[in-house]
């Protein structure tokens, strides 16, 4: 089967993808940009240049039209290359489906470590209460929508855990030394 002039021999998926997905995103991103107060003066200049270029096509000569189009391109290029990707990214985040992220409870790795390293008494008296406190504070912060604080609580809980276990091990070692040194 031969393709006629002006037809694609097979579906051009790239063109299809661009026209259905990317082009509306770029258009909406540019609309966002034109609505923003920050870029308003720039768009005013662009409007003026566009109008001037159209007038130039009827009243002025070819050279002045080229100069005006060049100015238009000069203004458009930094706008698209510098700001466009940010707005496009923002729009993509809005458009793409959000995935729900399931993560394990904070302290589950610490619990595993405590199971592996400590005796049941140490785990029950020292490791578990620290993890429980950390989880309590962490969920409290999450309910208050304070993600940064929740992250910090996680870090602080880990520090407290290792500090406590290290301290406990040292104290236990010193007590053991005294017990061994005691005359029988």
């Amino acid at each position, binding site marked *: 089967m031969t393709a006629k002039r002006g037809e694609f021999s097979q579906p051009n998926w790239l063109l299809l993808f661009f026209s259905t997905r990317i082009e509306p995103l770029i258009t909406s991103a540019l609309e966002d940009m034109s609505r923003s107060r920050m870029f308003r003066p720039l768009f005013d200049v662009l409007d003026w240049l566009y109008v001037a270029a159209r007038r130039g096509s009827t009243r002025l000569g070819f050279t002045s039209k080229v100069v005006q189009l060049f100015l238009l391109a000069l203004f458009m290029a930094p706008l698209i290359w510098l700001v466009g990707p940010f707005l496009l990214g923002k729009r993509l985040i809005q458009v793409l489906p959000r995935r729900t992220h399931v993560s394990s*409870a904070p*302290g589950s790795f610490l*619990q595993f470590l405590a199971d592996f390293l400590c005796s049941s008494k*140490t785990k029950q*008296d*020292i490791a*578990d*209460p*620290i*993890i*429980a*406190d950390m*989880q*309590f*504070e*962490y*969920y409290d912060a999450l309910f208050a929508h304070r993600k940064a604080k929740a992250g910090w609580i996680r870090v*602080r*809980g880990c*520090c*407290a*855990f*290792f*500090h*406590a276990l290290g*301290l*406990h091990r040292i*104290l236990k070692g010193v007590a053991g030394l*005294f017990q061994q*040194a*005691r*005359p029988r």
Partner: protein
Amino acid sequence: MEVGFMGRHQDSDERVPSLSGKEALILELLLGKPGAEMYGLELVHTSRNRLKRGTIYVTLSRMEDKAYVESRLEEKKADASGLPRRLYRVTGYGKRVFEAWQLAREAGRRHFAEIGGGR
């Protein structure tokens, strides 16, 4: 009563109860809330950072071994998530030791003032 290493009394019943500064602070905080139990983290917050998160449970565990405090796990609510927290309260023995420690500290201060160390 036997006298053991470095002149210490070895018989556990005869051993003089000892109380470190941090242990005394914990007893003071727990006794400051009469009849109530406190979480470890609550103790840290109430002490205004004189107690640290990393050391509080080691100290509380030691105090539990010495029978100054006793603990229990909190009842877990249906909608609660995470491990149950541990609640601590002072025992009668812990209270008596703390009172004796306060008396000894007062006597020590008075004695120190008398011999002119208060300058």
